[in-house]
């Protein structure tokens, strides 16, 4: 029985967690959902005693089994915490790669739990670790035991983390975004494992996630956090189906879901005019490894892709990481690739929008400069399209308005903007020369749900206004569903299936497509 009573946590005098009350009972999975900066992680870390030393508990207390673990105004009892950490409560982190010590064998890292909290012999420790590895679904535990983290796949690493967390059968497991860094299919396995463990061990679990669909699937109760406060707390289905607070309502509204009706942005679905024709395109990658004298090895990344992109449509491209989505898109844009086959473009200089809003804008320039740069570049390439300074400036201001930002941002630098704002600028920069085609590579994946919805809306609006075509790449099936007119499924470099959105969702032909869609439900 864990109680968080009226907890407030502050960094440098700024409260990031405000008067949070939570109670977790045995056997339940409590979800904490919220957008980035909502204080969900800090709450969990404070509970675990892992929050950094600069953080200060300004009010409230944390009680575990009637033992006061932490109380405002009192120094942290580190010793007490150390006996609890791992033994009574443990944590699973988001990034299994960085959360494991890269230079220690994973067996040893898991075994350290036992070394710290039990008096088992070396052999006993090893046996217990192997047993737990087996239990979390690691095949060939003996081999895994002697591996370093980098030798394991992402899913295996997360299983090792889970093994570490549950090896001492703690009363509470805190899982902080445990599946966010993983591929969809692996995500499902891990979620299933966690749920399974919860059932078997009958312990309590706090599941922190930004993914509302996921929370809905796994949690018994859900707490919605915003700006450090709990906005709403209740049984999962209540929250999702009957949200009380307006924030929760908005949040639920923003969640892309196949259960909601799709709105196509395409103006005239009948008049199909191809803007890009891809014929039998194969893309290769040459590598000679670390040996400069070795012969180059040619790897085929994309195999014989043939498809068209029509004017005004959004073509979705889905597939797991490493399937060749990005390579294909780059080949279409003509970015330094070894290709065979043909790409026929009818539009000049198609542009691209990237996933990470932080790296897609040059940090040393102002927004105004960035918006004008495509115009300048065009003017240099083609003197007939040269624009005056004033014209370029005017165009930049206009674009700023179009992507929904105020004029004051013109002189700011990207670092002064939020992620969503940056993505707006990226879109504006891509569109200012009015290309016909935009390749959007996971453009909303790094954004919070509400921002995600706004950006998608913006993209759809602009598509209508400017008759744009999108090649929309995403791993998130729900996002693709919402955005795209047609969907193309890729696996291991090959296009498995292509079809109208509704059609393909209703009747997926390929087996892989079927699992992919099922997993993302």
């Amino acid at each position, binding site marked *: 029985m864990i109680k968080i009573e009226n907890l407030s946590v502050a960094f440098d005098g700024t409260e990031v967690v405000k008067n949070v009350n939570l109670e977790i009972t045995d056997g339940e999975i409590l979800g904490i959902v919220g957008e980035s900066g909502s204080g969900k992680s800090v709450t969990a870390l404070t509970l675990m005693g892992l929050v950094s030393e600069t953080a200060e508990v300004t009010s409230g207390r944390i009680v575990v089994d009637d033992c006061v673990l932490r109380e405002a105004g009192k120094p942290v009892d580190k010793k007490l915490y150390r006996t609890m950490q791992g033994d009574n409560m443990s944590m699973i982190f988001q990034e299994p790669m960085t959360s494991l010590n890269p230079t220690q064998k994973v067996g040893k890292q898991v075994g350290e739990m036992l070394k710290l909290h039990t008096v088992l012999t070396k052999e006993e420790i090893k046996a217990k670790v192997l047993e737990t590895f087996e239990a979390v679904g690691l095949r060939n535990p003996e081999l895994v035991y002697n591996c370093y983290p980098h030798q394991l796949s992402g899913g295996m690493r997360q299983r090792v983390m889970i093994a570490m967390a549950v090896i001492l059968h703690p009363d509470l497991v805190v899982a902080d975004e445990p599946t966010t860094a993983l591929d969809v299919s692996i995500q499902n396995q891990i979620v299933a494992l966690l749920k399974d463990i919860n059932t078997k061990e009958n312990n309590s679990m706090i599941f922190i996630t930004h993914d509302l669909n996921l929370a809905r699937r796994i949690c018994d109760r859900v707490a919605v956090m915003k700006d450090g406060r709990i906005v709403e707390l209740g049984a999962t289905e209540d929250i999702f189906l009957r949200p009380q607070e307006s924030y929760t309502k908005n949040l639920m509204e923003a969640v892309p879901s196949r259960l909601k009706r799709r709105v196509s942005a395409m103006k005239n679905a009948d008049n199909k005019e191809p803007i890009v024709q891809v014929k039998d395109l194969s893309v290769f990658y040459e590598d000679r490894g670390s040996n*400069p004298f070795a012969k180059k090895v040619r790897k085929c990344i994309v195999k014989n892709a043939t498809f068209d992109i029509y004017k005004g449509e959004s073509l979705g491209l889905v597939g797991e990481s490493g399937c060749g989505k990005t390579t294909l898109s780059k080949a279409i844009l003509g*970015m330094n690739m070894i290709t065979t086959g043909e790409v026929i473009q009818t539009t000049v200089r198609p542009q*691209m929008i990237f996933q990470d809003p932080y790296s897609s804008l*040059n940090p040393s320039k102002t927004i105004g400069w960035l918006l004008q740069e495509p115009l300048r*570049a065009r003017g240099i390439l083609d003197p007939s399209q040269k624009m005056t300074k004033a014209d370029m400036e005017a165009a930049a201001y206009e674009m700023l308005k179009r992507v929904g930002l105020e004029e004051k941002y013109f002189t700011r630098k990207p670092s002064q903007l939020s992620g969503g704002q940056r993505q707006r600028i990226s879109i504006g920069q891509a569109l200012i020369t009015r290309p016909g085609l935009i390749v959007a590579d996971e453009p909303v994946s790094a954004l919070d749900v509400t921002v995600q919805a706004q950006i998608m809306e913006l993209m759809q609006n602009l598509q209508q206004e400017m008759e744009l075509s999108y090649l929309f790449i995403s791993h998130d099936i729900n996002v693709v569903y919402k955005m795209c007119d047609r969907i193309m499924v890729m696996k291991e470099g090959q296009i498995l299936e292509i079809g109208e959105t509704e059609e393909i969702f209703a009747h997926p032909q390929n087996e892989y497509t079927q699992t992919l869609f099922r997993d993302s439900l």
Partner: protein
Amino acid sequence: MKKSSIWKNKYLLIGLFMTGLCLLLGILGLFWTPYEPTKISAAERFVGPSLKHLFGTDNFGRDIFSRVMKGLSATIVIGTSVVLFSATMGILLGALTGYFGGIVDEIVMRITDALNGFPSILLALVLISIFGNGKQNVILALGLVFIPSYVRIVRSEFIRLRDADFIKRARLMGVSKVRILFVHILPNIFSVFWVSVMIGFNNAILAESGMSYLGIGVQPPDASLGKMLSDAQGYLQRAPWFALSSGLTIVWLVLGFALLSEGVQRMNNN
């Protein structure tokens, strides 16, 4: 918010103060010194520090403070010229090799690797043997010697940035290669680059003083702090203030730049 953080950055402040004082004295030394720095006086040999002669006088009865001021400006000129030369070359080579890679990169990197491993003072020694003594040659030799360190930094930054999303996008916009190199990428490496420039300045000063000690540094009538210090060590026991005043001025200047670079680093990290 930004301003207050600068005031909180003690390294930056102390560094600015120390280097600023040196720069001030150095620049002032170009136009005015309390005494004629070359004026010899038989009556005032080895006079200890006093209000009249702040740092005392040397073996020729010359005012050491005036000479330190002159030496400071020479040292600053040497440090700055070396840094300017090697940093410019470093940027050019680093940018080209880092961005384009390929066989040129391979060759340049082999050379810089070999040079980097080679003790810099030794290389300077060989170069000075070829070029001959004198201030310009010291600058040239040290400038050449320090190029590889900048190539390395610039190159790795360019490699890091050449695949950044914003550069990919610039390429898609049709921005020319030269413009990508120098307008899009270059401004982004300055924060890292400034730190290495300041460290390079210090290395140049220290290397120059080492060279002076080996007899291959600046030669009269030019004077640098390193040369003064190496001259003064013969009088360490007879007139300790002679060595200490030039030695401590070097320490002060180098320390100032070290603190400054640390301050800049901290500012970058925030």
